[in-house]
Every structure is written in structure tokens, then in C-alpha cells.
């Protein structure tokens, strides 16, 4: 066992972790620990853009961005935090540009912006160009740029270290326990302040856009140490994943004029969102796709739709919608222009589907995409652990693993990248400031005990069960019964199944008993995280008897503000039971009203 001491520890090296590391290390002795090389983080797969009301192409205001985000959240987002994020956004984008991020440019050399779902001109209700982009690899550019800045500023990294446990002493953060993958050795990182930036857990579902690494480690570790998980029933299904594979096809495709088409050749979104149509928010479109499929209007009667960005289709609907270029001339695109704006999408379709999106429509289906819930924090990134928002001293969270909540019941596209840049930065600043005025908590007598016990379980169990099978069964069950549409009996079935799988998981024994890169052992532990979070998600969902944003119930199809305009907090008790409590939503300027696109 090795012991390290840092003032600030960041766990996770995606966008939020790197931003936190960059800012914390300016004033405090900081380390960033990551189970992946930082550039492998899931931020890199974000495609379409990062939202900010720069107004580079047309009129836009942070106030509009704020309102759109509140509305997108189905009024479950905390409005103080949303306003903070949307007003910080403009500065954050300029800062990224000053760090060298290669945004695409307008003809006059400014950062280029494209329309995205749910982002509107608040006067006309029409889509507004707010998503700042770098082709369809905006996340890649953000991740690379932030990593480059971290190297430039000599940020200390521990790459390929898997964090297993969080140490809390005297009700405050004291450190984390991690396994060095290359050696299997346990390391204790003793710290004054800890920032979790560990990402989401979309690997719970069968069809997912999420990386293998997205196993909800940070949230699972936190709930095992008594920190609640907030709003876990709200998980986003992105409407356009590659059929059967789930690989993300950015909303930017529709921002560039792509249209969703059903099996009858109809542009079905006009029925569901008459004003913004294919640029409605993600929950709305995913539901529309399911409803169309249910009515037998999938392509060839199958469970998928077409996303069509062929120039002839884009140009046809641009005329119908009256879409114009910024200079007022009609929007006419060519195949080359589409390829230039969406090169990776074209590449994915060619490689995985053998389909060329310039000449053929893309088969798509909704895919598990984004964790709206997570570790509860306030707008400074401080982890808050009860209904009264009591802060846990020294503990911070940012990015997808955190629930501020700026996304509420449904996240708008481009707001995740914004979230991690803004809250990663502020968590880093706050943590460093806290560390300057705090002393180290003493470490517990056996700091690695709980972590060791968790891992040793998989070396000692009877081996009656296979982890791979358990994972497959969990993903299928959760996709079938905890997906876009939910109903009580289905969710109860899912809960029973997840609990059965948790029991079976106790019998998993790994074949690999070695120390060096024992990936099998880590995977078995990650599966345990997914199972715990699947259970918390399902329990939270069964309790919420309404439909709101990404949580859509057939037995309770309406939003119920009287009963449910509140955040769920779920605690996993030591005996395995899950307790639910609730806390109010922060409402400042925007009273809830019906949500129509």
C-alpha cells in the first residue's frame, strides 16, 4: 500500500475533471486520478456542439438560453444553477477559444454556431443557432484542448488508476482508495478536498451510446458511503443512435437540416412538435419514435426510423420550413458541405452500417445516453447530502456524475459540454479555496479495508455465475422495462430482476487471480456499480407517479406539479434497502407551464 498526499484530488479526467484539475492546480497541490488515459474519456465522443448565447450569427441572449434549459428540464432544473450556467457560458466559450480550441468559423472569422434541439429564439419560438461547434467532434476538441492545457501547466496525473472507495472521516472528505491497474497495488490518496468527475452509467442499458468505461463508479462509490443519489429516475434516451448498435448520431445532423422519416415516408415530428419539429428536445422525439413504431410505422415494420440528411431531403424541407442562411438567402446544401460539417457521422455510417448518409438515409433508434441525476451538488459543485442541502465539507462533484441540477428531467443537447466546463471550473476553484483553509482529516486505521473487501469478493466467491451473462440480462431487462416508456408492472419486473442479478453477482468469481492489469476483476466490480445504480434508478422511478421529461409513465401520463415538482434523493442503506426523500426545486423566474415545442 502506498500513501500519497494532495490538497485537492480530482477523480476522473474527462472534461469536468480536467477543468477542475486545471483550476485547482493553480493554487493547490492537486492530482488527477483516472481509470483511463485522460484522452480516452467519454467527453471525447461528444459531437454536435457546446451551447452559449454568443449571438455570433443571429440574435441570442443568455436569458433565452436560461429559459430554454428550464423548459427543457420540464421545470425540474434548479433555476438559480441554470441561470448561473447559461450566463457563465459565454465567458467559458471564449476561454476555451483562448486555450486554442479550434472551433469552426463564420465567414467573418467568429466562432460558428448551429441550431440544436430545444434551443430557441424566445420571441419567435423558432430554432436559434447557439451550439458552438468544431465539425462533429466538438467533445474531442474540448478533451484534447483541456488535456493539452493540463500538460502545459504541469498538472499531476495518475493514469489508469481505478478508484474503489471514498474515505469520509468526521463527516468530511479525507481521501480515496485506488488500484493501480498496471501493478494491482492499492494506493491511498489522502486529501483535503476531493472532486468526483467520474461520468455517467449508460452501460446499464442494452442499446447505449456510452463507453464501456461508463459504469457510474463515482455515484456507486458515493452511495456506498451514505451520500444520496439525486433524480436517478431521469435518464436520457437520445433519439438517434445507430440501429442495434446505439452509437450516437449527433443532433447536429438535424441542426444541419436532417429530417426524421417513418416507414410511410412521413416527417412524423410535425405531429408531435409543430413549431420546431425535428429540433424538439430529446425526450419528446424519443417518445415520438416509440409511438410511431407502436402504430406500425417503423421502417419496414421494424423498430427503427430513418434520419435523412441527403442534400435533396435537406433542401426540400428547408424550402417548406423557410430555413434561410444568415444573410437571408435560401438554404441550399451540397453533399460536400454535409460531409465537411459531419465527417465523423458519415464515417460511422460507412464503417458500421455500410450506409453512405450523403446518398442513403440512416437507420436509427433511441439509445441510452445521459445521466441527468447523480451526486447532489449546489451550483458551486459542493456535494450536498440531505433535503436541506447541507454540504459535506471537502467533497465536490462535477460533470455527468453530478446533479446540480441544471438538466432536471431532460437535458438539452450542448448543455452537457457546457455543464462540465462551467461546473468543472467552479468545483476546482472552490475545492482549492477550501483546501487552503482546511487541514487534513486523519486517515482511518485500515483505509483500504472496504476497498479490499469489495475486490476480494470476486476472488473468493464460488464461481457459480458468469459476470458476462449477468451484464447481458441486466442490460436487456433495463432497456425493455426502464427505457423511454415505463409502467408500474414493467418497472417492478425490472426491480425484481435487478435484485435477482445482484444476488447472482455475489457468486461471480474471476478467473484472473493476477495483479497486473486484472481487467476482469475491475469489470466484475464495475458490474456491481451498474447493478446498484440500476436498482436505485428503478426504485426512484417506481415511486414517481407522474411523467416528466425523461421519465415517461404510461400509467401516469401527465406531469403532476402539485405532487412531484421536487427532486428525489435516494439513500442506499447498509442492509441494502433504499430510502427515498425529496427536496424542493429552486424556482426563481419561470413558473411551470405546459411544455410545447
Amino acid at each position: 500500500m502506498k500513501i500519497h498526499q494532495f490538497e485537492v484530488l480530482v477523480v476522473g479526467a474527462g472534461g469536468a475533471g480536467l477543468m477542475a484539475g486545471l483550476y485547482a492546480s493553480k493554487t493547490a497541490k492537486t492530482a488527477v486520478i483516472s481509470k483511463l488515459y485522460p484522452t480516452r474519456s467519454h467527453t471525447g465522443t461528444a459531437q454536435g456542439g457546446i451551447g452559449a448565447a454568443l449571438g455570433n450569427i443571429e440574435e441570442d441572449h443568455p436569458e433565452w438560453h436560461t429559459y430554454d434549459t428550464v423548459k427543457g428540464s420540464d421545470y425540474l432544473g434548479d433555476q438559480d444553477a441554470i441561470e448561473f450556467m447559461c450566463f457563465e457560458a459565454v465567458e467559458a466559450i471564449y476561454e476555451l477559444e483562448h486555450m486554442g480550441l479550434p472551433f469552426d468559423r463564420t465567414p467573418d472569422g467568429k466562432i460558428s454556431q448551429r441550431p440544436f434541439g430545444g434551443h430557441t429564439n424566445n420571441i419567435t419560438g423558432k430554432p436559434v443557432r447557439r451550439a458552438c461547434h468544431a465539425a462533429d467532434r466538438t467533445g474531442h476538441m474540448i478533451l484534447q484542448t483541456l488535456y493539452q492545457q493540463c500538460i502545459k501547466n504541469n498538472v499531476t496525473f495518475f493514469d489508469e488508476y481505478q478508484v474503489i472507495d471514498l474515505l469520509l472521516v468526521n463527516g468530511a472528505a479525507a481521501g480515496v482508495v485506488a488500484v493501480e491497474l498496471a501493478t494491482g497495488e492499492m494506493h491511498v490518496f489522502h486529501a483535503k478536498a476531493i472532486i468526483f468527475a467520474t461520468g455517467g452509467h449508460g452501460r446499464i442499458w442494452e442499446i447505449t451510446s456510452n463507453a464501456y468505461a461508463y459504469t457510474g463508479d463515482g455515484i456507486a462509490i458515493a452511495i456506498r458511503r451514505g451520500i444520496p443519489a439525486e433524480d436517478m429516475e431521469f435518464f436520457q434516451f437520445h433519439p438517434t443512435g445507430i440501429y442495434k448498435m446505439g452509437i450516437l448520431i449527433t443532433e447536429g445532423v438535424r441542426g444541419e437540416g436532417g429530417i426524421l422519416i417513418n416507414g410511410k415516408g412521413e416527417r412524423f415530428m410535425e405531429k408531435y412538435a409543430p413549431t420546431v419539429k425535428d429540433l424538439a428536445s430529446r425526450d419528446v422525439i424519443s417518445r415520438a419514435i416509440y409511438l410511431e413504431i407502436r402504430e406500425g410505422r417503423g421502417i419496414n415494420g421494424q423498430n427503427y426510423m430513418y434520419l435523412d440528411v441527403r442534400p435533396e431531403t435537406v433542401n426540400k424541407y428547408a424550402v417548406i420550413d423557410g430555413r434561410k442562411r444568415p444573410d437571408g438567402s435560401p438554404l441550399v446544401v451540397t453533399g460536400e458541405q454535409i460531409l465537411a460539417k459531419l465527417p465523423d457521422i458519415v464515417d460511422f455510417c460507412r464503417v458500421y452500417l455500410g450506409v453512405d448518409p450523403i446518398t442513403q438515409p440512416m437507420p436509427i433508434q433511441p439509445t441510452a445516453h445521459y445521466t441527468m441525476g447523480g451526486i447532489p451538488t449546489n451550483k458551486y459543485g459542493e456535494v450536498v447530502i440531505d433535503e436541506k442541502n447541507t454540504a459535506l465539507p471537502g467533497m465536490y462533484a462535477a460533470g455527468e456524475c453530478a446533479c446540480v441540477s441544471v438538466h432536471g428531467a431532460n437535458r438539452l443537447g450542448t448543455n452537457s459540454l457546457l455543464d462540465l466546463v462551467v461546473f468543472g471550473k467552479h468545483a476546482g476553484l472552490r475545492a482549492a479555496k477550501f483546501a487552503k483553509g482546511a487541514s487534513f482529516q486523519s486517515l482511518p486505521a485500515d483505509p483500504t479495508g472496504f476497498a479490499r473487501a469489495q475486490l476480494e469478493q470476486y476472488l473468493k466467491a464460488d464461481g457459480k455465475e458468469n459476470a458476462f451473462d449477468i451484464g447481458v440480462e441486466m442490460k436487456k431487462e433495463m432497456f425493455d422495462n426502464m427505457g423511454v416508456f415505463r409502467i408500474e408492472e414493467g418497472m417492478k419486473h425490472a426491480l425484481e430482476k435487478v435484485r435477482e442479478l445482484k444476488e447472482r453477482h455475489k457468486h461471480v468469481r474471476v478467473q484472473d487471480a493476477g495483479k497486473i492489469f486484472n481487467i476482469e476483476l475491475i469489470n466484475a466490480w464495475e458490474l456491481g456499480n451498474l447493478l446498484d445504480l440500476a436498482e436505485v434508478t428503478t426504485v426512484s422511478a417506481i415511486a414517481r407517479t407522474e411523467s416528466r421529461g425523461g421519465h415517461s409513465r404510461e400509467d401516469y401520463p401527465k406531469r403532476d406539479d402539485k405532487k412531484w415538482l421536487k427532486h428525489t434523493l435516494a439513500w442506499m442503506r447498509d442492509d441494502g434497502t433504499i430510502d427515498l426523500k425529496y427536496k424542493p426545486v429552486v424556482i426563481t423566474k419561470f413558473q411551470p407551464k405546459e411544455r410545447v415545442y
Partner: protein
Amino acid sequence: MQVTIRIFRYNPEKDKKPRYATYKVEAEPTDRVLDILEKVKGYQDGTLSFRRSCAHGICGSDAMRINGFNRLACKTLARDTGTRITVEPILGLRVLKDLIVDMEPFFENYRSVKPWFINDEPEPAQERFQSQEDRERFDDTTKCILCACCTTSCPSFWANDQYVGPAAIVAAHRFIFDSRDRAAAERLKILNDVFGVYRCHTIFNCTLACPREIQITKAIGEVKAAIATGSLK
């Protein structure tokens, strides 16, 4: 289809020397080699170790030699490999276990070219302006995902691992030709070295290996030309 996959295996805790193990796996033609490796690990041999994350060619974790060519396992489909697949670690970096190699020397080379934006002029209140043409100038090299497919396919790198390698030159190119950056001369000086760009003998392995289809040899050529002429045109 049934696939026979032959995999390079080496566990330093057990094996005196590397070996190959062969597995038979049921696969769909659209399965990725990564899916096949996952099935082997899940059902036949849990000790098989490899890196992976995003599974669609963006994170750069799963570079390996597939039927003799450097590829990402997640971007190579069974219908293209055929029913007999050989998978080995990328060459030129020390094997730590099975398909996992020591990436540190690779990242060290990357860091050596100062792959970060340098411009110490006062920052404007808004963005720095850049024309679409200036932005386009370095677009290709911004695609790099640091998977190491290029560097570990390069015979010059195999011959001498002090060669900075194509990936590092690509990283340098991305900044050298960025009109906003001010440190081109510094980077060109670093690459104007016996282990810099001149180790590139235009073999084009890197270009063929790149899963992002970056025109690497061309980029290296542009860096060589910039050193030779002192001009960034």
C-alpha cells in the same frame, strides 16, 4: 459465422515467453473485432486483457495488430477480417500483458513537441478571429485520437524508438499551422533534429494505419518543408 481468432498472449506473472491462443467464436459479420474479444473474455478466458472504452473509434484505446495491420478493434468488422483473425499488440512498445502495451514512451514523445496552444499576447475580450481558410489549414491534424496506430506501424520507429514518431509530428503540425499560435518556430526547432522529422522516410505505413484517415505523411512533409523553407505557407 464462426470465427477462429488467434490471440497473442503474455502474462508476465505466469509466462516465461509470449504464446498464441486460439478461440472459436460465433459472430455476426457486423460484429467488431472488439465484440469478438469481449466474447472470448466473457465466456472462454477471463484473463484475456486489452484496453477499450468508447467502442466506436473515438477514444483510441484499442489499437492492435489485426491480421498484420494496425487497426482499432472497435472499427474493424468481422465481415472485413474474414473468419480467421490474428490479433497481436501494436509493435515497438513494451508488452505489459496480452494486448496491453506500455504507452508512456508514446505520450512522452507527444509531450516533447509542446502540443499545446501558445500565444502570450493579451487575450481579446471575445474570441480571437480566424478565417475559415486559416482554420481549414490544420483541420486534418485536429482529428488525431492518440491511438498510436501510426507511430507503431512506422519502421523508423521500430528501428529506433527515440524517433519522435508520426503521432507527435501530427500533434505539432496541428499547432504549427494554426494561425493563432505563436510557437511554430520553437516546435520546428524541436523537430529539426536527428530524431525529428528526418527519420520519416515516406513509407506511408502511418497514413494507411490511421483510423481517422489523417494524411499523416503529407502533414510530416509540410513540417519538413516548413523547416527547410522557414515558411508556413
